[in-house]
């Protein structure tokens, strides 16, 4: 049996570069797909019809499992979601139902904003920091750096995902877990 062939990640290099530019240290990272064994994104209970939220959850979980050392139980972790287009699949489904004069599934209401899957991650991994969703990778890492600098978080999980738009493309996602340059843990005198 041969090992699954690796697939060049898209987004991960940009995340690493933006983290370096923001002065952040990368503790763990992951992407989707990583190998040709990454076919269907694993389903996520409560999220329907679109792979957007399951994709974010899967790549985030991979990065969190790869953390090099056990997380300090007191650490506050921010969640920063980055997406260029958001959950277009869900948006298109809703628009089609509306245009057809139909009602939409209540589950689509809950997944209509990226905050919902961020909330899922926060509960699943006990990430108690701020939840922020922005449209660009540089913005996402700048927000992460600011939250750490301000002691609103000790570390940040930055997750970047976008669905395939055209035929032949694939859903892509990447995630990194970052800390400040010296991993301050809020022990420095603050500047108030």
């Amino acid at each position, binding site marked *: 049996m041969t090992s699954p062939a690796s697939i060049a990640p898209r987004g991960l290099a940009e995340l690493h570069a933006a983290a370096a530019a923001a002065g952040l240290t990368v503790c763990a990272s992951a992407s989707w797909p990583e190998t040709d064994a990454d076919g269907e994104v694993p389903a996520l209970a409560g999220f329907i019809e679109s792979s957007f939220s399951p994709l974010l959850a899967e790549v985030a979980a991979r990065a969190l499992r790869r953390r090099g050392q056990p997380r300090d139980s007191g650490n506050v972790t921010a969640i920063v*979601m980055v997406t260029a287009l958001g959950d*277009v699949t869900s948006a298109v489904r809703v628009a089609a139902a509306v245009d057809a*004069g139909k009602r939409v599934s209540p589950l689509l*209401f809950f997944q209509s904003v990226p905050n919902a899957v961020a909330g899922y991650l926060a509960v699943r991994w006990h990430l108690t920091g701020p*939840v922020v969703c922005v449209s660009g990778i540089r913005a996402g890492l700048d927000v992460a750096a600011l939250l750490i600098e*301000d002691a*609103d978080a000790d570390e940040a999980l930055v997750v970047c995902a976008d669905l395939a738009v055209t035929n032949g493309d694939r859903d892509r996602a990447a995630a990194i877990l970052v800390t400040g340059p010296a991993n301050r843990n809020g022990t420095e005198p*603050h500047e108030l």
Partner: protein
Amino acid sequence: MADAPAVAQAPAARRGTGEVAVTGAAAASAYGRGTEALVSGMLSGQPAFAPVQRFDVSVRRVRFAATMPGLPDLLTEVTRAAAEACDEAGLSPSDRARTPFYLAIHGDPAIARAPEADQPGHGPGPFTAAVASGCGLAEQDIRCYTSACVAASTAIGDAASIIARGHTDRVVVAGGYLVECDQFALFDAGRVLAGDGQVRPFSAGRRGLLLGDGVGAVVVESLQAARARRAPPLARLAGWGRTGDAYHPVQPHPEGHGMARAITAALQRAGIAAGDLGYINAHGSGTGQSDPAETNALRLALGDAAAGVPVSSTKSLHGQSLEASGVLELVVTLLAARKGMLPVNAGFLGADDRCRLNLVLGEPLPATAEFAMSLNAAFGGANTALVIGLP
């Protein structure tokens, strides 16, 4: 669900040493365009909700919202508000060209019906660039926040933070949501809309929220930079806090732990005590679970002062404007503090023991509020608190 950490475990909030001001503000809502229309509507105490005429709601359970007449265009309205805020701040074309721009929106309303090949052109990034271009702001330094009902307040907190640290002198922050058929259908499907056509925050008998048009913009600026160009501050942006509950994907922590930490961080950064607050513009969605959770957060963070400080949720007047809520409600808070008249918490039917607060009821309250706070919460357990101080 997970147990959120207690407030006492939160790390002490840090901030840069620079003072931050708001030097321009603009808004549009169902009360009309401009801050004068907003003040007039707020102080009328008359909610702006009416049957929706903008699109077909015949298959919806609930048919009310707070909307401007006609079919306003989001790009046009947000661009107008951002430009008006820049005008009030007295920003020259060269000032604007150097000013970063943060926008809070759900997304480009056109994306869901665009041909697949055109969808990338309808992302939040291109939309934000179009607004920046329309009012002459720095197109190379733009950012779009899509974090639901804390999108705009998070953007304002981030702007304040980088200005306090001296990373930039000024950021223009805008947000916009205009009631449209897709979000209306989703909220209707989620059974969170108030079937009686009124939003009744913190009240017995409250039935839920109603959507409302909301557009707002503020110029957030270093106080030192504002003074250097002789621009009078409308208010100081004294404190900010953003936190997560880690309790539930779409419900707030019932004890308000996350919101309490946001309030505590904002007060720490403002360098004030709970008793210094003269007004709180609450998140106050008018839903069954959110209002008691917010009440608990206020009690937890403010202690005895929670019983005395006047509170209202102006969502009972202008409705819930989603990603734009944070900037619209900060402008409401700022205008109320400057006017010395606190808007009512409309729709109140009677006390709910789980929501015991000093609500502004009946008539606007004449009051001096040297410091006032605006609160927002969102799906994902996200919470924000912004504190303004009169200059």
